[in-house]
């Protein structure tokens, strides 16, 4: 990777961290509602994997911790923020919020609130690509907890049986809400769980984006070249609580500190500094520019965008011209 790409990538990591931090503030100001799950700490996984995918071409699907996946896949940060604000200009017209970002224009096939449900959908996307004879692949990001759902096992079997072009990316952050992995899962190395389905798999450090990219490149080559599904596991950590109402009482400060020492931005930043590609001064400048972009463009856009129209509440259910007879009158 050349230095300018490395700098770009580093900037992306910082951008995603700051985006999530700012989202947190907006939530505290009650501009963002419902539930909010932030990706801070895990940035290197989605950023690194999708750096090696063909975004806009390949299908990407994930759970509810989805802002970064959507943006890296090509969704506009402004539209993602507007969605969080529940505005008409949002990527789901302000109707879905944080957990349901969707941007089919770049083949970002959604965030999903229901844990484990994207697995079959990803296999279906891969099946579609295969039947149409394109070289697209489907990339399905999900957490460690999701692998205890039946959909995981049913999907693995069929994806393998039918040799589907699907890459499963497991973001193992050791917790499903407040349940630590060893209390819920017998085989904690997730990549070992798929061997019974004849699917190739591997496990890697998810905090070092160079490691992520190298592993992802191989896995994506495997899938795209027609060798069938691949399952890749990244060990990572979410810094914040599961959602904003979580006090993190189930884990120790020491454990958190250990992971923060292995921060993806820190690791990559140090590497670029040691290689003389970036200086501390440049990093500071970068951070300032990012904060300005987030504030003056992204937040501004979200703040100034219109609210969805109440008359449109019943839209997008069956067709774009709903029959008022069965939608019923809209009064408030």
């Amino acid at each position: 990777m050349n230095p300018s790409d490395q700098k770009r990538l580093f900037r992306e990591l910082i951008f995603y961290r700051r985006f999530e931090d700012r989202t947190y503030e907006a939530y505290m100001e009650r501009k963002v509602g419902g539930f909010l799950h932030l990706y801070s700490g895990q940035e290197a996984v989605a950023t690194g994997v999708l750096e090696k995918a063909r975004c806009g071409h390949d299908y990407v699907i994930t759970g509810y911790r989805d802002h970064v996946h959507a943006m890296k896949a090509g969704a506009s940060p402004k539209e993602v923020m507007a969605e969080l604000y529940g505005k008409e200009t949002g990527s789901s017209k302000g109707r879905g919020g944080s957990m349901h970002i969707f941007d089919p224009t770049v083949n970002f096939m959604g965030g999903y609130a229901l844990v484990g449900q994207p697995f079959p959908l990803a296999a279906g996307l891969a099946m579609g690509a295969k039947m149409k004879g394109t070289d697209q692949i489907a990339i399905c990001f999900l957490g460690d907890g999701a692998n205890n759902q039946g959909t995981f096992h049913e999907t693995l079997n069929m994806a393998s049986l039918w040799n589907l072009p699907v890459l499963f990316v497991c973001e193992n952050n050791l917790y499903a809400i407040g349940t630590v992995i060893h209390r819920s899962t017998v085989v904690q190395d997730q990549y070992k769980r798929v061997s019974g389905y004849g699917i190739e798999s591997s496990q890697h450090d998810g905090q070092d984006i160079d490691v992520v990219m190298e592993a992802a490149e191989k896995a994506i080559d495997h899938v795209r070249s027609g060798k069938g599904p691949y399952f890749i596991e990244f060990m990572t950590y979410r810094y914040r609580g599961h959602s904003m109402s979580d006090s993190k009482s189930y884990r120790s400060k020491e454990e958190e500190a250990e992971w923060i020492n292995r921060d993806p931005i820190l690791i990559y930043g140090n590497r670029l500094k040691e290689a003389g590609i970036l200086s501390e001064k440049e990093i500071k400048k970068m951070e300032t520019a990012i904060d300005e972009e987030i504030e003056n463009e992204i937040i501004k856009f979200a703040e100034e965008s219109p609210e969805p129209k109440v008359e449109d509440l019943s839209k997008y259910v069956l067709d774009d011209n709903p029959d008022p007879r069965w939608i019923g009158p809209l009064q408030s």
Partner: protein
Amino acid sequence: MSEITIAEALNQALNHEMAIDENVVVMGEDVGVNGGVFRITKGLQERYGAERVMDTPLSETMISGMSIGMAAQGLKPVAEFQFMGFIYPGFDQIISHASRLRNRTRGRLTCPVVYRAPYGSGIHAPEHHSESTEALFAHIPGLRVVIPSSPARAYGLLLASIRDPDPVVFLEPKRLYRMMKQDVPDNGEALPLDQCFVLREGKDVTLVTWGAMIHETRQAAETLEAEGIEAEVIDVATIKPLDIETILKSVQKTGRCVVIHEAARTCGVGAEIVAQISEKGLMDLLAPMQRVTGYDTIMPYNKLEKHYMPSVGRILLAVKTVMEYV
């Protein structure tokens, strides 16, 4: 005596029943160590141990299905789903097996499971986090569907549901979890599972509702009172089996009826209530009945939520329609 919320009343009921009946077990995601995402099972694992208060992996099919196998042997599982929308992955086991165990064994076995879930909107989250699909369950023969709407009814109805030999889908209006407080003595007294509750008597119009909509309906009744209209407010509470007698008695008196629910309109439980009133009480009616409901759309996010939910204004409008009919 200190006053408690619905959330605390549910915890009190679980605690009471676990103390007196060792067959009662609690299972679900994060119910043990963390005491549940809404803290309904708080402190239970400490008191009754991890064998009776089980943190399950993330697997609703197993939560709903295993409960049935356990219940078939006389255990009384109280299974928690973190949100009503998360029952769906476990739906199959409930409708295909829990509801049919009694029938399939021709009464030799029953299925004393309680499936609990936070229900309804009011927290600005879209879709699965705000579902009110009680009609799906009410449609299934062999299930009871219960929705409390006050701390006292939460306590009494949960006790009754645990003691009931058949499967109960117990839906907890999460908007009300901490909205109101009441004195609820921990006396182990259950409330009947086949009865509506008349919350307010009136002679002019019958307002039938349940769950969090009790809140808006009562406000509407107060406004009407100021206008000289006496509304009778009925909390259905047990959606299935439906206590139509209490509703019919009220309609006999008032001649006018409005049914209010948060769930989408088409094939909602309101349709069933209105149908039964027309079958059995049509001649008592002085005006066509009205329904005030959610729309036939998916629960939207954040600020749009309030437009989806029946408002006091919409209830008053419907009452006006039935009152002015000649």
